[in-house]
């Protein structure tokens, strides 16, 4: 595996990673990404459907958490995940964790890390980890690492431990790697840890760079772990300690804006789990990424769509923040790069018919003697505009017949209803707003009517 850089511009590296795969025939452009899979399959897609897409990444990412429970089958099979999963012409990279799944913390020890399969937790020593790699037979893999530094208030001591353990695991992995026939020609990526502590990051990077690894994996910097500014700071510091001719893979970062920031900081490779996350919440990616080469017209050069508040008033109304200033927020909420396909604005016009009933009280007479009830039918046409508002107008006439006289009132309703996103049809608007009314009676009284 060789990294050939053609250009470095303001920290951004441009080049090609060549000599990938057992026969060395594959290459991957840098900056680039890996193809995210679960148990060797791109989520929801069969191979045929997958291959209707062009320009798929030449390196496929496997994750140990979806493979560990199948160790026995793979060992009996003997021919690795490539053949087991029916993956043909692709390079395989094996990571420890799945970037789209979070792990429950607190299960890491000095000698072990854990992954979670469909049947529960599986504990891995370095020996078991390497046995798995032997069964999976990837083309490159990250060494076993302790990356549990993302929680708020992780102590300095804990961070230091994660660096120490990861280095120890790396040394053990490399030892076993060179003893394993099935892994000859396979590259190992050293993992840089260090939480949010600059000194630990530098130490981890420096020490890892001393080992004979094929490249570097930057861990513990994922989207939920810290905000963008700190991340790029740390990456910049890490990069200074790493050799230029080896690739750097950043784990757990997939949002377009964050990816760009990290490319500027010197990262070469990313994981591509972000489209999967967007899919799982029923959204589709729709961000423009045109680059204007005219220096007069260019701003940052890449258009980032308007903020969330403009796009999705409903979410804003609930007060959710979007963007990376609050990283520990739930990863399932929408970003500015997508549209929610369940949104009603994609159903252009809804027609609803409904009825309303209200009670008029006539204050000019004794309450006991005059209560009238009227029923009116209104037909409203609701047009969902960008804020999902239906405006309905209905007119109803009610006639009160108190003991001594007849009074009539006409009331005009203007009701404002909010269509909640996620309902399939807004055919029955539910009345949230209360309208003002004007009424006239034979006696010149005003009546208040309400719903």
């Amino acid at each position, binding site marked *: 595996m060789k990294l050939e850089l053609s250009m470095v511009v303001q920290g951004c590296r441009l080049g090609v990673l060549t000599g990938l795969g057992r026969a060395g025939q594959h290459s991957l452009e840098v900056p680039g990404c890996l193809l995210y899979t679960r148990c*060797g399959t791109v989520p929801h897609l069969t191979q045929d459907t997958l291959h209707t897409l062009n320009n798929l990444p030449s390196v496929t990412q496997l994750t140990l958490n979806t493979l560990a429970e199948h160790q026995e089958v793979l060992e009996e099979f003997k021919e690795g995940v490539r053949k087991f999963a029916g993956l043909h012409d692709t390079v395989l990279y094996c990571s420890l964790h799945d970037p789209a799944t979070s792990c429950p913390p607190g299960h890491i020890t000095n000698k072990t890390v854990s992954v979670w399969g469909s049947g529960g937790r599986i504990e891995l020593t370095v020996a078991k980890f390497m046995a798995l790699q032997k069964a999976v037979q990837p083309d490159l893999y990250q060494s076993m690492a302790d990356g549990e530094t993302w929680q708020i208030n992780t102590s300095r001591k804990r961070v230091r431990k994660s660096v120490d353990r990861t280095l120890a695991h790396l040394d053990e992995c490399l030892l076993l790697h060179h003893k394993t026939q099935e892994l000859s020609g396979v590259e190992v990526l050293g993992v840089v840890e260090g939480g949010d502590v600059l000194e630990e990051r530098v130490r981890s990077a420096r020490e890892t760079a001393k080992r004979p690894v094929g490249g570097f994996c930057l861990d513990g910097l994922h989207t939920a772990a810290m905000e963008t500014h700190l991340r790029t700071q740390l990456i910049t510091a890490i990069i200074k300690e790493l050799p230029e001719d080896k690739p750097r893979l950043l784990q757990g970062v997939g949002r377009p804006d964050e990816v760009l920031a990290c490319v500027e900081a010197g990262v070469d490779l990313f994981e591509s789990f972000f489209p999967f996350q967007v899919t799982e919440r029923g959204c589709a990616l729709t961000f423009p990424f045109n680059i204007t080469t005219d220096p007069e017209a260019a701003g940052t050069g890449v258009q980032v769509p308007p903020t969330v508040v403009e796009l999705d008033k409903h979410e804003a109304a609930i007060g959710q923040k979007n963007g990376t200033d609050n990283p520990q927020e739930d990863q399932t909420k929408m970003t500015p790069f997508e549209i929610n396909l369940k949104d009603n604005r994609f159903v252009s016009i809804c027609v609803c018919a409904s009825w309303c009933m209200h009670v008029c009280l006539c204050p000019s007479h004794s309450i006991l003697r005059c209560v009238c009830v009227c029923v009116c039918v209104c037909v409203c046409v609701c047009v969902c505009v960008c804020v999902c508002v239906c405006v309905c107008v209905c007119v109803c006439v009610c006639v009160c017949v108190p003991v001594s006289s007849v009074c009539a009132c006409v009331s005009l309703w203007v009701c404002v209803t909010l269509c909640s996103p996620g309902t*399939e049809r807004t055919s029955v608007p539910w009345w949230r707003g209360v309208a003002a009314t004007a009424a006239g009676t034979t006696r010149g009284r005003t009546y208040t009517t309400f719903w």
Partner: protein
Amino acid sequence: MAAPIARGAATSSLETGMVVKKAVSIVAPLALRIIAECPVTKARACDLKLPHCTVSTPVFMPVGTQGTMKGITVDQLDDLGCQICLGNTYHLGMRPGPELIEKANGLHGFMNWKRNLLTDSGGFQMVSLVELSEVTEEGVKFKSPYDGKEILLSPEQSIAIQNSLGSDIMMQLDDVVSSTVTGPRVEEATWRSIRWLDRCIAANKNPDRQNLFAIIQGGLNAELRKACLDEMTKRDVPGFAIGGLSGGEEKDDFWRMVTLSTDHLPREKPRYLMGVGYAVDLVVCVALGCDMFDCVFPTRTARFGSALVPWGSLTITKKQFAKDLQAIDPDCQCPTCRRHSRAYLHALFKSDTAAMHHITIHNISYQLTLMRSMRQSIIDGRFPDFVRTFMKRMFPSPEQYPGWAVDALGTVNITLN
């Protein structure tokens, strides 16, 4: 012998005195050409010409309820050689609704399917899925599960929705009664279905490009069914469905009604047996003279991990397949069997929905291949041998052949021992 394509105006009257005039249609949107008839049984192989393409029968039509075959793309369905599939009027009528689909160039445009579509009337779903409020002469009143509103589905409305969907074959709205019900309700439903058929015919805005099929009722009552056949065959519809079966009745009653129906349906029009999908049922009913079938079974069972094979079915999620490196069916040519093993699919089932999609593709391929083999054997004049070979493969020994199947095949001159 092709279906007659030009006819003078025909009239028919019912006991209510309604007169239905059938207009002259110069070019019908359906033409059936009988390629071969089995000299031993009632099976036939035909070419059914429909607006979007010609369909080879006998044919199995996969069900894509909400305008999609769950888990697979229209391209994949196309690659499997599917020439006609089903969409569901009830579901699509509720969501997204006929107006939107009409704007999208009909259901074909909406789901981007270039071959044929058959839509059912919505009648069956109303009975099977929702609280049935009331069946009146007007239509069926029920409460929609989507928004709780009271909806009336009348023959006119069902046809209107199907007109908007633009399907190649539409089904009449019938008064659906479970096949386990007996008594006067069945008779009422039969006569009402005939009246509703006439209303559907009158309501069809596109007789030049959409084919309306009648649905023969009569439950499990031979006289009633015969009466229904006599009446409905008087109407000039392009095809007939055999309905009111496949709902939990005894198989012994089921096949008798099927064969009675095919005995009295016109030879030159297609016969569609609704809701039949198990392999044995398909083979027997082809022998009894049916041309078209639909069922959710193969696609639904796939999502539970069950793969259909010539000797039964394999539940891939079972432990015994964890290390089984063969394809689901080593002889199957579907994309799943060409690339994946049982062991891999077993493993994948624990991680991702793609496993279900793989099995869906295999099951649809299995059904379509079965129909294709039957068709070819009819054309080659060896259909009875095909049936015997099929049964031998499917059941470990002759003692295990289902009794009803043996009886049914016996009536069309196939002996199974």
